[in-house]
């Protein structure tokens, strides 16, 4: 009963999405106010029905309704409740339902926070989002219905993949999807601008916070995924250049370019067409990413051949969305125009260069991700492109980008002088070179690559200091703190996000340069020493969890002969699936992580044990968090709040006017009476 209810809700949502995708857009084109006014209520109605549908699916999971195929395949009655809820987006079908549910949540947000926008604009934006929604709901209903029944019902479910039974995995997909889906707002704004042919600084100001929020979600989503891979997969790595990871990294790269390009469009009115193109690209890559990960094409290209409905639908949908928006772009972009002019050396040109570098980086990741798939599907042989390719491409591409990242914030808009910039930054450059050369000695060994990585990081930090000092110098009278408080939040947010990049680079550089890894046979009582720490193996003993059996190792960590910690890595076997899984033990610290994982049991209670010493590894995720905080700070900038404030003024004046009209009417009426 409940799954059927969910199915009906989904069908009703489709009908509302169809309305949302057609009438408001036509209404805006023909100037029919009642059709334009339809946009907001329809969006909210669609949200209600999708919420019901999603609630029904979650209900089926929580209540172990194994007569639903999706539940039977992805859950189990022994599964703890939080993972049963998470399992509702663990599968292909459920995750797409979550996707479209989030799309409608973003649409509702747009409909609520857009009171100050022209109604035609809102109608077009929501209409485009409605069309995207139509595509997704149709895909769900036609090829991957999450409410499909399994008759006769299964007695027991086949369990959620144990790797996904983890708190990080519970929130990682929703975060990532919020990012993917969030770019649909930027996309819809861009398409609306193309349709209307109107695009100015106000347009950029409207779409900018939305894009930034989406970017923040995506950043946090990728960070959580990387962190999860680190502590859950048992390999101690944090990024593998796996197609699944690349699928989320691609929209991030283009989204980062978009955030910067939007800044130029808002401040200077330049880069207009480019911004629109980036918005289209970012969302197209989000769609591609969703489908790459969720369609099973990565598992096997030939799965498409066995289940052609899904593959054909996906390809058709991608072609329609990307093709039609690029066609619209080609047709209408000249109308939007390029925007203001700028010099060869200026902040604009530096931002443009960085945009191009980010796009080339995205293109190279796309090549490395899709090329093996294309080769395979055309039967031209099986190849794989591993981390060496991506590393060989990324470091040279990002080096000039990071150099410009330090230069850009200090350069003037429109026209900057290179000699003057060099003069202002000579100390920053000197300090970062000297520190980068000396720092590796502190770590114990000088390595050229470490020095190079640190140079990039210290360059960012040093230029941030120079920028802030200069800004304070130019901001009039007052003490240090009054001056600091006078700077806008968006100014600080930029530096905070850039600082995040620096922290990230420090983490990556030091962990790559100085990590030690050992796979060793450990008998009971034997020790291994690494990075000044001694690990003593005390054997492993059986323990049982809610839905698994495990062997838990007991390892003492000693420093200078003193016991500082006990680490208990596990080797689990899950009851329902019989799947084995390594659960490493990690001792997290500001300057290093200790990481221990159990390999295989040997004779006499001995085990193969993997021991890592990873300096500065947590800085990688801390850097990502700083970037995300930077984004959040940017959205809370005064000029966005001012708008809300001025809206209040507007409404109060309207109310006052209304009162005046009313009292005039009253007077008139009174006059008549008299």
């Amino acid at each position, binding site marked *: 009963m409940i799954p059927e209810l969910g199915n009906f809700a989904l069908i009703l949502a489709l009908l509302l999405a169809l309305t949302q995708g057609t009438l408001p857009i036509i209404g805006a084109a023909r100037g029919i106010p009642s059709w334009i006014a339809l946009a907001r209520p329809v969006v909210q109605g669609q949200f209600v029905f999708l919420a019901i549908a999603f609630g029904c699916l979650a209900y089926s999971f929580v209540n172990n309704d194994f007569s639903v195929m999706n539940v039977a395949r992805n859950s189990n009655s022994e599964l703890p409740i939080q993972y049963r809820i998470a399992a509702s987006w663990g599968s292909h079908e459920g995750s797409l339902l979550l996707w479209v549910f989030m799309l409608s949540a973003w649409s509702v947000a747009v409909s609520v926070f857009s009171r100050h926008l022209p109604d035609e604009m809102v109608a077009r934006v929501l209409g485009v989002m409605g069309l995207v929604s139509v595509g997704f709901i149709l895909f769900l209903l036609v090829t991957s219905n999450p409410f499909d029944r399994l008759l006769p019902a299964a007695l027991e479910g086949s369990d959620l993949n144990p790797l996904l039974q983890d708190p990080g995995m519970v929130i990682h997909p929703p975060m990532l999807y919020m990012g993917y889906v969030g770019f649909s707002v930027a996309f819809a704004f861009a398409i609306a601008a193309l349709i209307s042919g109107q695009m100015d600084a106000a347009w950029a100001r409207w779409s900018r916070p939305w894009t930034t929020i989406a970017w923040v979600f995506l950043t946090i989503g990728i960070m959580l995924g990387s962190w999860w891979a680190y502590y859950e997969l048992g390999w101690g790595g944090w990024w593998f250049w796996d197609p699944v990871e690349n699928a989320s990294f691609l929209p991030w790269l283009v989204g980062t370019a978009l955030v910067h390009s939007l800044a130029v469009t808002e401040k200077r009115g330049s880069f207009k067409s480019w911004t629109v193109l980036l918005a289209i690209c970012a969302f197209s890559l989000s769609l591609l990413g969703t489908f790459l990960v969720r369609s099973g094409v990565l598992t096997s290209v030939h799965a498409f051949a066995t289940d052609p409905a899904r593959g054909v639908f996906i390809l058709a949908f991608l072609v329609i969305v990307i093709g039609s928006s690029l066609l619209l772009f080609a047709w209408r972009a000249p109308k939007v125009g390029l925007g203001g002019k700028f010099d060869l050396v200026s902040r604009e040109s530096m931002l443009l260069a960085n945009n*191009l570098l980010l796009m080339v980086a995205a293109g190279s990741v796309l090549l490395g991700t899709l090329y093996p798939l294309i080769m395979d599907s055309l039967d031209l042989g099986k190849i794989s492109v591993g981390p060496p*390719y991506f590393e060989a491409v990324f470091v040279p591409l990002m080096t000039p980008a990071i150099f410009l990242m330090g230069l850009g914030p200090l350069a003037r808009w429109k026209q900057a002088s290179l000699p003057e910039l060099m003069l202002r930054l000579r100390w920053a450059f000197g300090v970062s070179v000297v520190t980068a050369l000396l720092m590796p000695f502190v770590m114990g060994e000088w390595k050229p690559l470490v020095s190079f990585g640190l140079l990039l990081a210290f360059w960012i930090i040093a230029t941030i200091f120079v920028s802030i000092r200069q800004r304070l110098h130019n901001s009039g009278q007052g003490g240090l703190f009054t001056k600091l408080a006078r700077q806008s939040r968006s100014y600080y947010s930029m530096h905070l996000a850039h600082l995040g990049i620096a922290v990230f680079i420090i983490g990556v550089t030091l962990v790559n340069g100085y990590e030690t890894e050992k796979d060793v046979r450990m008998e009971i009582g034997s020790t291994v020493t690494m990075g000044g720490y001694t690990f003593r193996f005390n054997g492993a003993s059986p323990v049982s969890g809610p839905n698994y059996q495990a062997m838990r190792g007991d390892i003492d960590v000693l420093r200078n002969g003193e016991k500082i910690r006990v680490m208990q890595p596990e080797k689990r076997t899950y009851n329902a699936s019989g799947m084995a899984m390594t659960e490493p033990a990690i001792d997290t610290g500001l300057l290093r992580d200790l990481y221990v994982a159990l390999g295989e049991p040997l004779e006499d209670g001995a085990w193969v044990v993997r021991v890592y010493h990873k300096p500065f590894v947590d800085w990688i995720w801390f850097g990502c968090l700083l970037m995300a905080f930077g984004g959040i700070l940017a959205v809370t900038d005064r000029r966005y709040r001012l708008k809300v404030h001025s809206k209040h003024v507007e409404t109060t004046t309207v109310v006052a006017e209304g009162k005046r009209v009313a009292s005039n009417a009253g007077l008139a009426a009174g006059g008549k009476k008299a």
Partner: protein
Amino acid sequence: MKPRHRKLAIIVSGVSALGIAAALVLNAFESNMVFFFSPSQVAANEAPVGKSFRIGGLVEEGSIKRQSDGVTVNFVVTDTAKVIPVVYTGILPDLFKEGKGVVAQGKLSADGVFRADEVLAKHDENYMPPEAAGALEQARIQKTVMTQ
């Protein structure tokens, strides 16, 4: 500089930068492509010597032997037609089992043993690495052709 010259300078520098980037990317791409060969292809000497490549198939039943240091493992990969002996030092993935699918990356040494520096088994019990599945399928087709 005249505006016309400036524009030209921007375009030329932009195009040349993109050209350099593209050359860099394609060069890195070409030198880092890793090809896959099935045990039958390796037996037919199709695999490169001295260059890293991937093999895949099933881990043959009863073939896993651990050396006395505890971390070096010998096993045999088969596509049911031909076999390759493999040696690997390190911890094997959780889903590495006899009779299950596996993909290994490494180099073939002169004595015919494949020295793996990476062993991959994917994160799902029911799922066979696509390359391994492909190798088995290929061997099956070969066999039917031969028996006919």
